[in-house]
């Protein structure tokens, strides 16, 4: 196994799609133990560690993705296209047009997602990053849910349905019950988590009891819940009184997530809850007994069964936990983002984007957290880029997916940049 370290350590086990089990190649090099001999000299050793580590491939993957995005932006820019007509007569025209289009787009991305230098003070400039955190929060929550599923060997592709259900449950409590502050909010959150957990739990029970493949069932439930929610939004149950459109009434102020920073930063208590969730997931997966069982089932369901673990029960538990976390993304959407009433499009694609976030975070809680922040930056910056530079926001989606694609294939990244494969010195490639 010549050092092919597929770092996409997502043990998709007995999903019925993948054959189950994870092979050693799927474990990132840094976890495989120090089988690379350390050469003499601390500086040299550090340099080699950086060269062979996964952090470098991550950075390089981002670089490749930004280059791909740049090509896309430049190629579709009208000025670039018109100057290309006389490229050989005056090449500088086209080159400067490329520079202007790509540079402008990426600067706008930075301005909208990280730091807006046009603002008066550095603190105001960071409001952009606050926006990014706002986008990142539901992505992290849902990404954690998908990651827990991956680690347990279940592929929860039903994020959309669970987000919608979480949103509907939390939203319903939030606009019907005008209770005391904090308590109303917490009750709405609890109901939302219940909604997501119920949907995923149904999948888990069906899988455990009848063997129904969770991939099929979650995909189908996405549609079922979408249409049911659309239906409920046109009945008095969820529809705003007097509205002709399928939209819910606005949430009561006491149910809405309150800001933890000045309002302009758009950072609310939901983000703190997500940090708590990340810590909890981290503990769950690496320290708790159920987490151990989940990982055992995810790595090798057959071995887990032999070891006395009730695999079906673990599948169900993993699905429920996954659904609860994904459900929180829906809660955040109605209590933190669109508090003025939600529609059946309230999921905003989070269900599917969460899968890429989980993959980018390599299904580890803190990995998912930072992956979510990165995607949040892209999302927030993407809107600024679209508004200021007229670059369609879907360019961001292309960049995001190229990052994940290359991060999953470190050998490919290394081959592109002509870096040696880690361990290649020891075992001939």
């Amino acid at each position, binding site marked *: 196994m010549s050092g092919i370290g597929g770092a996409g350590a997502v043990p998709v086990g007995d999903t019925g799609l993948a054959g189950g089990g994870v092979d050693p190649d799927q474990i990132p090099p840094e976890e495989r133990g120090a089988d690379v001999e350390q050469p003499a000299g601390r500086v040299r050793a550090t340099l080699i560690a950086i060269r062979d580590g996964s952090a470098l491939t991550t950075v390089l993957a981002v670089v490749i993705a930004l280059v791909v995005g740049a090509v896309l932006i430049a190629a579709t820019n009208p000025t670039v296209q018109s100057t290309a007509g006389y490229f050989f007569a005056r090449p500088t025209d086209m080159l400067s047009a490329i520079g202007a289009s790509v540079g402008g787009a990426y600067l706008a991305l930075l301005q909208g997602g990280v730091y807006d230098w046009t603002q008066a003070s550095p603190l105001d400039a960071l409001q952009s990053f606050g926006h990014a955190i706002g986008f990142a929060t539901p992505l992290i929550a849902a990404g954690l849910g998908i990651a827990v599923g991956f680690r347990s060997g279940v592929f929860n592709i039903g994020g959309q349905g669970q987000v919608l259900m979480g949103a509907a449950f939390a939203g319903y409590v939030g606009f019907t019950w005008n209770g005391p502050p904090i308590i109303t909010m917490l009750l709405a959150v609890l109901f939302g988590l219940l909604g997501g957990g119920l949907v995923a739990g149904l999948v888990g029970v069906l899988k455990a009891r009848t063997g129904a493949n969770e991939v099929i069932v979650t995909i189908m439930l996405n549609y079922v819940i979408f249409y049911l929610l659309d239906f409920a939004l046109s009945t008095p149950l969820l529809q705003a009184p007097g509205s002709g459109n399928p939209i819910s009434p606005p949430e009561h102020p006491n149910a809405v997530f309150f800001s933890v920073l000045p309002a302009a930063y758009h950072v609310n208590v939901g983000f703190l809850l997500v940090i708590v969730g990340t810590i909890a997931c981290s503990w769950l997966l690496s320290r708790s007994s159920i987490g151990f069982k989940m990982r055992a089932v995810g790595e090798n369901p057959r071995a887990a069964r032999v070891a006395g673990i009730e695999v079906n029960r673990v599948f169900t538990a993993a699905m429920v936990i996954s659904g609860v976390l994904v459900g929180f993304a829906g809660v955040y959407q109605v209590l933190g983002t669109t508090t003025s009433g939600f529609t059946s499009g309230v999921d905003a694609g989070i269900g*599917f984007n969460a899968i890429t976030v989980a993959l980018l975070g390599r299904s580890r809680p803190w990995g998912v957290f930072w992956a979510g922040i990165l995607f949040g930056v892209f999302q927030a910056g993407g809107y600024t880029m679209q508004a200021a530079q007229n670059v369609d926001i*879907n360019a961001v989606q292309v960049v995001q997916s190229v990052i994940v*694609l290359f991060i999953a294939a470190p050998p490919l990244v290394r081959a592109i940049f002509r870096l040696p494969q880690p361990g290649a010195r020891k075992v001939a490639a």
Partner: protein
Amino acid sequence: MSTRVAAPVVGSAASRELSYKTPVALGIFAVLALLLLVVFARDGVSTFSFTQAGTVALPNVSLPVRATGIAVTIVAALMTIGAVALIRLRGAVPRWYVAVFTLLLVVGFLAWATAGQRLPIVGLLTGSLALAAPLIFGALGGVVSERVGIVNIAIEGQLLAGAFVSAIIASVTKNLFFGLLGAVVAGTLVSFVLAALSIKYVVNQVIVGVVLNVLMLGLTTFLYETVLVPASSTLNAPPTFANLAIPGLSLIPIIGAVVFDQSVVTYLMIVAVIVVWIGLTRTRWGLRLRAVGEHPQAADTVGINVSRTRFWNVALAGAIVGLGGAYFTLGSVGSFSQNITSGAGYIALAAVIFGRWDPLRASAAGLLFGFASQVANILGIVGSPVPSDILLTLPYVVTIIAVAGLVGRVRGPAAAGRPYVKG
């Protein structure tokens, strides 16, 4: 075929303990029938119309709704009891039994939903086939890819690529066959990425598939918004395939219009189903493909080049799915729009699993899905007491119940999802 491989396992399990899943599923449907067709019975007469232009006129069938509902419910209940008896006596419920039961309930439901209305049967079946066509192409590609050992979640991405490229090429060249060719190339290119990453760089195939879907959705939407929308009359106005009636055969009542008066893409689909089925089960190509998917090491030992076999068959799968993508633009709508496939690739993936990785059964699953969707569409048009949103959940609910009750634990190709590293 997967059944042949899986048969001993299933058979021995069934002989040890009897599974009552099928009778339970039938029972649930019988109770639903009781609720809907008897408790909430409707009055009036439902007319099933078989007329179509240009062929022998068939008489309409008129069903008194209430009586039909009661009759259907009684027969369904009897058949559920019969299923229990069959499990006790023979250990299994034959497939035709389930098929007859399903047909019965479908007739009962259609009569109930169209009380006082006329239901065009030919339109129902033609529309079903049209909705099923891209699903069947997608499912065939999925079957080929997974039987050779590469999990293909990228069906959605391949469909989108095929739809997008075929729309542009057919618009520019004004030639439908160049459009089809473009779709094949586009689907193959997406497959190349899937194959290269999962075979050469042994990346988790599920990851590649999911990410390719997101990538293709982002890429086609970006290019649609920035390139196609500003120049829609030149780049996004492809001609569409006209129906091509097969002389003689198209005059057969009902079947003629449904099967033999279709566009070239639909005929291609029928040919593809037959070719893939025969190819997989009866040819050297199919034997090698399945060997690589079930036990790559054994295949390698007898001299089959596992990586090459996987690579080119995944490419072939992409080509087939690409044709399905062309169906969206050149076969029906006539122009590309954002996310035109809207999840059809995931449905096709479900059809692959539902059909137990068998080309014929996966195609049947696609047809079932197309039929359920078309029922929802037609009932939305003729007007039914059920709100359209509820009707639209029909295909998905039916699939969930069928997967949970009738299919159950399925076993895919043994080596699907596992990279093969020689050594």
